[in-house]
């Protein structure tokens, strides 16, 4: 067999031993593949990257009812027409995504544990707690329940990070975390 370019047909047997440099290159690539491959399950299981949430089907209308009931039960204030809700520690918290708002504004206590239920009543949205790297999909028809414990006090923003129509960039919600004693 003579040498050929990629454009011509190699004749005869071309299954020949590789040059040492190619073997090294192949070994490096293979080793790196294995590292990346191992990272996938490790990141999932050990990296604290993917929490196992409760995931259940829910009719958007039902989720809207639950959210309204939640607001009626624990509303403490109102900012620009948006209810501010302060649920007791340990309770179920409902956050409803819709074009183009997060309803309601949540006031949570630092160090307390809550079950946060996320869902949408129209299209897909994305829950991104700014300035943290916390991201969840919010999908209509699915209730995503997460065990959360706020670790820092402050006034945080929820930015929608899934395109949801023309007002997508205006869809900003609020989570206010207060120190336990203040409330």
């Amino acid at each position, binding site marked *: 067999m003579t040498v050929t370019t990629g454009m011509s047909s190699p004749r005869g047997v071309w299954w020949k031993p590789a040059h040492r440099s190619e073997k090294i290159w192949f070994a490096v690539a293979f080793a790196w593949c294995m590292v990346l491959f191992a990272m996938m399950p490790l990141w999932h299981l050990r990296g604290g990257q993917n929490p196992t949430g409760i995931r259940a089907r829910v009719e958007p209308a039902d989720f809207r009812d639950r959210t309204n009931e939640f607001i009626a039960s624990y509303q403490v204030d109102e900012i620009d027409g948006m209810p501010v809700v302060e649920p007791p520690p340990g309770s179920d918290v409902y956050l409803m995504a819709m074009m183009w708002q997060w309803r309601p504004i949540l006031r949570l206590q630092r160090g307390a544990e809550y079950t946060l239920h996320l869902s949408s009543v129209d299209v897909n949205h994305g829950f991104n707690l700014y300035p943290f790297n916390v991201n969840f999909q919010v999908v209509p028809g699915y209730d995503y329940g997460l065990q959360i414990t*706020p670790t820092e006090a402050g006034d945080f923003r929820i930015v929608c990070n899934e395109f949801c129509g023309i007002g997508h960039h205006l869809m900003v919600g609020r989570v206010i975390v207060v120190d336990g004693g203040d409330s």
Partner: protein
Amino acid sequence: MNGPGTADVARRAPGPEPGPAGAGFRTCPTTGLKVYRDADNLIKAHAVVATVALLIGGVAALGVLLTRWQAVHLLDAVWFYRILTVHGMNMLIFFIIFFEMAVLYFAAGPLLNCRIAAPKVGWGAFGLMAVGMGLVEWAMWTGRADVLFTSYVPLRAHPNYYLGIILFAVGALVTVGVFFATLVVARRERTYEGSVPLVTFGALTAAIIAVITLLHGAAIYIPTWLWSMGLMNVDPEVYRLVWWGLGHSSQQINVAAMVSIWYLLGALTVGAVVLNEKISRTAFVLYVLFISMASAHWPVSLRSKRKP
């Protein structure tokens, strides 16, 4: 080195400069390859439409850039999202897949000294792809499909948007079929000796990935098209999962085709020889076997998060 002459290109070079009149082929003055008229025209047509899509996608990219650049802020929200949709579809679907079809015709035709198996079917498929692209462009530019590239259900576009993508995918699938058929014809008519060239081999892996991609596309866009007309329901989570079978792997066709073209350019520009056919071909095979598995990180990483 002046010119692309290499040992093996030169081996082919002698021969009539232009093909004999009426013979249905010409001889490429640069490579010495025999180019049948059908292959010639099909390659050109696909490559030209691909380039037009690249132009549209590139202009849209400028629109995106000049809007995100706050000092300029060229477009309002409506046109920003519209142009972002235009950018995604033209770059990631129309440009790359049209160009890949040109690559397939080149790899099975001229590189194997072979005629195209069913040129009329090829032109029909080209027509489907072009009509599909036209429908999608119409829907996007007239504001009937402001849904971005991913078009996650239940964000709804005009039914013709989905129909256009379906026609495009079917056309591309038929083109891949013509490519496979041409490989069979070349083998049967003994238009080459030994194994197919490495570039053809790489194009074949791209074609296999293209089949996987386009079947995913059909599997999700046909129900979504029916949904857009109110004829059935599509679950948003199912949509996301299946859609990415298209979204990821459409880029992987591209990777396989691109690496093949690197080998081609290496040969054409500096006469680069293949160091080891075994290594190069094994790498292509491994890519086909494992890339889809690597894409499966997606359902896992999707809900990535870190606790605050």
